[in-house]
């Protein structure tokens, strides 16, 4: 039985969370163990001390509270003075009446319009007229079939290269986007511009499908930087298929995660990770108590890009920050970083261990706890950076024991 187990047992005993049998066993044990009895009594003493002073209400408290209430319930605007429940009732009744009547009126109006339409069709379509329309439709079908037959015959006798041109000549001037194929168009097999896109480009109008075309066609050789090395099989750097840039192994992992995410439905946190992906090395295996990703990276002095992170370089400021322990009520620090992506720890003399970071997610903030450590334990004389997703939550660094309050 460890010290921790004993403490837990004492706590459960004091808080009445033991079963009858466990409680009896504990009492028996306390009776036979003076040291244990002393510790239990010490805990009870704390409770008694906290309850001993009734903390009397100060004189005049209720008068002051009443005045404050009266002040807070004073009407602040003029309309409060003319407000009455009767007027409010009348207004509500009016609104209710309007809500009932107005949709009815609208429905009647629409209904009458639709009714008039059906009357038109019904009266015009006399038996003679219907017969005439049917004959006309049959004639049109016959003409279309004849044209189709002619086209088939022409295809058989005309050279293949001329086919599109002939087809364009017969095609009506209106656009037919469903006949276009991005792949064939990019590959240069479409020699004509049946949809008028080329004309639009000449006029400088952007093509809505340009991005899609480039994705389908893949990166063109001419677009790649000349100095770019060819990745080999043994190289852990990979190509980003979307941006054509070299990635670190961490980024490559993210690209793979991106591919996985496309295959499976994304959890809520994914968009944030995506935002991180293009900038930081990111270790997806390291997560905080609530699943928030955390990465600690040792930093050498001067390696932090200016303007990207909040940096505290002054050792005096760091000492002050370091001294803000939870033992002091006014030291409960809260920092709202403008970018809220990274927290830098120490310019070198900061005695906190960068690899012992606890992360808690509370209602409206992320709490980052650092474990204290000797300066010699720091992974880098430049301190370290703690990365986590950008987001609306504020970051609240608390320097304490480094132990989690969570189970």
């Amino acid at each position, binding site marked *: 039985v460890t010290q921790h187990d004993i403490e837990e047992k004492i706590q459960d005993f004091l808080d009445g969370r033991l079963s009858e049998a466990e409680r009896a066993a504990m009492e028996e044990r306390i009776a036979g163990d003076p040291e244990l009895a002393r510790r239990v009594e010490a805990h009870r003493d*704390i409770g*008694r001390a*906290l309850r001993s002073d009734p903390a009397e209400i100060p004189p005049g408290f209720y008068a002051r509270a009443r005045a404050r209430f009266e002040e807070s319930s004073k009407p602040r605007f003029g309309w409060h003075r003319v407000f009455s429940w009767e007027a409010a009732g009348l207004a509500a009744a009016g609104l209710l009446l309007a809500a009932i009547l107005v949709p009815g009126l609208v429905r009647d109006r629409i209904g009458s319009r639709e009714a008039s339409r059906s009357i038109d069709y019904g009266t015009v379509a006399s038996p003679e007229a219907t017969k005439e329309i049917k004959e006309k439709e049959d004639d049109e079908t016959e003409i279309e079939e004849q044209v189709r037959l002619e086209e088939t015959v022409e295809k058989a006798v005309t050279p293949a290269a001329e086919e599109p041109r002939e087809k364009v000549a017969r095609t009506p001037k209106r656009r037919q986007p469903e006949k276009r194929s991005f792949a064939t168009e990019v590959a240069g097999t479409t020699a004509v511009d049946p949809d008028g896109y080329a004309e639009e480009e000449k006029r400088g109008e952007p093509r809505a499908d340009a991005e899609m075309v480039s994705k389908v066609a893949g990166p063109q050789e001419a677009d790649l930087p000349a100095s770019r090395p060819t990745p080999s099989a043994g190289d852990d750097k990979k190509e980003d298929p979307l941006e054509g840039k070299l990635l670190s192994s961490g980024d490559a992992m993210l690209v793979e995660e991106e591919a996985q995410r496309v295959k499976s439905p994304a959890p809520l946190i994914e968009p944030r990770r995506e935002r991180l992906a293009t900038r930081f090395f990111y270790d997806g295996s390291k997560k905080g108590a609530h699943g928030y990703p955390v990465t600690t990276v040792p930093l050498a002095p001067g390696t932090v890009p200016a303007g990207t992170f909040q940096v505290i370089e002054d050792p005096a*400021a760091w000492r002050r920050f370091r001294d803000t322990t939870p033992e002091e009520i006014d*030291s409960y620090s809260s920092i709202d970083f403008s970018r809220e992506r990274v927290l830098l720890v120490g310019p070198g003399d900061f005695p906190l261990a960068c690899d012992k970071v606890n992360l808690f997610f509370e209602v409206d903030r992320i709490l980052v706890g650092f474990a204290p450590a000797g300066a010699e334990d720091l992974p880098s004389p430049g301190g370290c950076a703690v990365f986590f997703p950008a987001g609306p939550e*504020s970051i609240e660094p*608390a320097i304490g024991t480094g132990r989690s309050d969570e*189970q």
Partner: protein
Amino acid sequence: MTRTGEQTGLAGVRSSDGAIRENETADFLKRIRRGDADAFEAVAREVSPRLFRLAMRLSGNREEAEDLVQETLVRALPALRRFEGRSRLSTYLVRALTNLWKNRLRSRARSRVVSWFQSGGRENEHDGAGIDPPDPGPSADERIEAEGRAAQVRLAVTRLHPDRRVTLLLREVEELSYEEIASITGVPVGTVRSRLARARDDLRSLLGGKP
């Protein structure tokens, strides 16, 4: 494990001495919503002793405790739309008070640290530029009082981490169950348990290892 004999809050059992009866409370709350100061004072007299004691233990400062309780009453009572029993009202007010206290703590700390960053971290320990003065903490009278054992414990409690402090006080002073504390603080019961253990551990350290 609930003490009711000496409690004077709404969860208590006072009805023969002019205090508000259970079935009258809903009516009083309605009147408060309409701005009735008499109703407000009557309810305030019922609930304030308990709230004040908690506020004193949280803040360690009489003036701040008074302000905290008054603000809780003025804001929370008119906002209560439905009365579901005195114990629920009591829980509601305790939750409102602890949230208000934590919000104050945060905004106070935030303004201090932001000004610290705005000064570029160049201020030194002595000039105080860009940094709010430290919290005055317990008054001189209370420091003298601290000679007593109970006062020492109370003083030590004000130095606990805020979450642990709230949890410990709700347990030891209010004698609430873990489930009730979890409901007030909005954390799982397991977290209540671990926070209590940490608080007691920290308290023992603060008191020199011999609580």
